[in-house]
């Protein structure tokens, strides 16, 4: 579904990604772990071209999205993204946040978009908040709304950029719960996270990144239970 070939990204002289290669299959849940500054977030943000790669190729459902002639907006409709800082639109209600893109981008009729939005609010357990403004919500609620907003576009893949890192500890669970349900429903997901327990439980594949490269990848039991790479061992010994 997503193929990444020799992806490089540098900011000025700073090389963040130094040749990343990965293939992500439909329905797979890939969890990317690694120390801060290892390039995990940059890698994720390259997948929907929020960062423009310096070189390399990314293909999504057969289309090369790194091609300059490719209309990235069409691809982004099919790739949902959830951010560390939620990034809900503060001037719009919860319902408007969720309905905006389906109505404006997909030209979906208002009633249909509203129905989808209400269903999604039900799914994330926040149906009663539909008329609230983001500033009236807790961090965990905001993130669940952000997930619903991304899902409203009916994406084929969901990208999560440290979705629980900005949350108070007691709110982490409710967000992970929603993500887990999503994974169980068969959604293709790429998740950058520091939640090792969640990674082990929900991930089909764990990717360990360090120094702008994928150092090791495998099933959770392989990577967590029997890491091969010395840096993986070193990292896991610090976080587990």
């Amino acid at each position, binding site marked *: 579904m997503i193929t990444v070939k020799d992806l490089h990204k540098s900011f000025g002289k700073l090389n963040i990604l130094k040749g990343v290669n990965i293939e992500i299959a439909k329905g797979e849940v890939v969890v990317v772990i690694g120390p801060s500054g290892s390039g995990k977030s940059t890698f994720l943000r390259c997948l929907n071209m*929020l960062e423009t790669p310096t070189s390399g190729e990314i293909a999504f459902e057969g289309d090369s999205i790194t091609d300059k002639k490719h209309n990235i907006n069409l691809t*982004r409709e099919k790739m949902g993204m959830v*951010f560390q800082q939620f990034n809900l639109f503060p001037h719009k209600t919860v319902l408007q946040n969720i309905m*905006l*893109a389906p109505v*404006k981008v997909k030209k979906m009729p208002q009633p249909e978009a509203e129905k989808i939005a209400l269903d999604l609010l039900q799914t994330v357990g926040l149906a009663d908040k539909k008329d609230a403004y983001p*500033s009236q919500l807790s961090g965990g609620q905001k993130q669940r709304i952000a997930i619903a907003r991304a899902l409203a*576009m009916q994406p084929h893949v969901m990208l999560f950029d440290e979705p629980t890192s900005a949350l108070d500890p007691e709110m982490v669970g409710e967000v992970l719960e929603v993500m887990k349900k999503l994974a169980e429903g068969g959604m293709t997901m790429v998740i950058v996270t520091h939640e090792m327990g969640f990674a082990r439980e929900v991930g089909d594949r764990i990717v360990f990144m360090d120094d702008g490269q994928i150092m090791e990848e495998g099933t959770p039991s392989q990577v967590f239970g029997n890491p091969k790479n010395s840096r993986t061992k070193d990292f896991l010994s610090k976080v587990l």
Partner: protein
Amino acid sequence: MNIFETFWEYRSYFGQGIQYTLLLAAIGVVCGFILGLLVSMLRMSRFWLPRFLGTVWVEFLRGTPMLVQLFIIHYGLVSFGIKLTAIESGAITLSINSSAYLAETFRAGIQGVDRGQAEAARSLGMSKGMTMRYIILPQAVKSVLPAIGNEFITIIKESSIVSFIGVTDLMYQAQAVTTITYESLKPLLIIAAIYFVMTFTLSKLLGLFERRLSTDDHR
């Protein structure tokens, strides 16, 4: 004649003055707003040429007296065969002058919106234009509303310079009444009061509008 009698006696003068002042200020506000928005976009362009043009526009209009600008447009452009009526010259001057100040205000507001907002919008498949229209601008305008209000009030007051080229606005009419009555203070006090009522009303209206917009702020 006390001041009220002066006002009543020459009410048709002041009435006409109010009309022209309001007309020019309204044109200045509306055209300045739209033009200012366009100029702020130029100033934030990815390409150097529009950015350069935007900067020249802003710096020139901010850096020279509005009276000089007015005279250039009204008397100077004649040598290029462009003959404008006093009203036209006044409206153009007020519009372009306020556009320069508003452009800087808008730019500050737009750049003040968190980068994550645009990223979230783009990640949902919205184009740059949609993102600007539905996400960035509403938040930017809200945050700089007080500064926009200041500029509107400035336009009302500064519109008085058009009396120099013969537009029969409030300032002009005060001088006209002075020529008839030989009273210099009273007509000026009268128009000062009228200007104040206009600006004070506007500032109250903007305050109301601001409060309505901030209903989504419960921080």
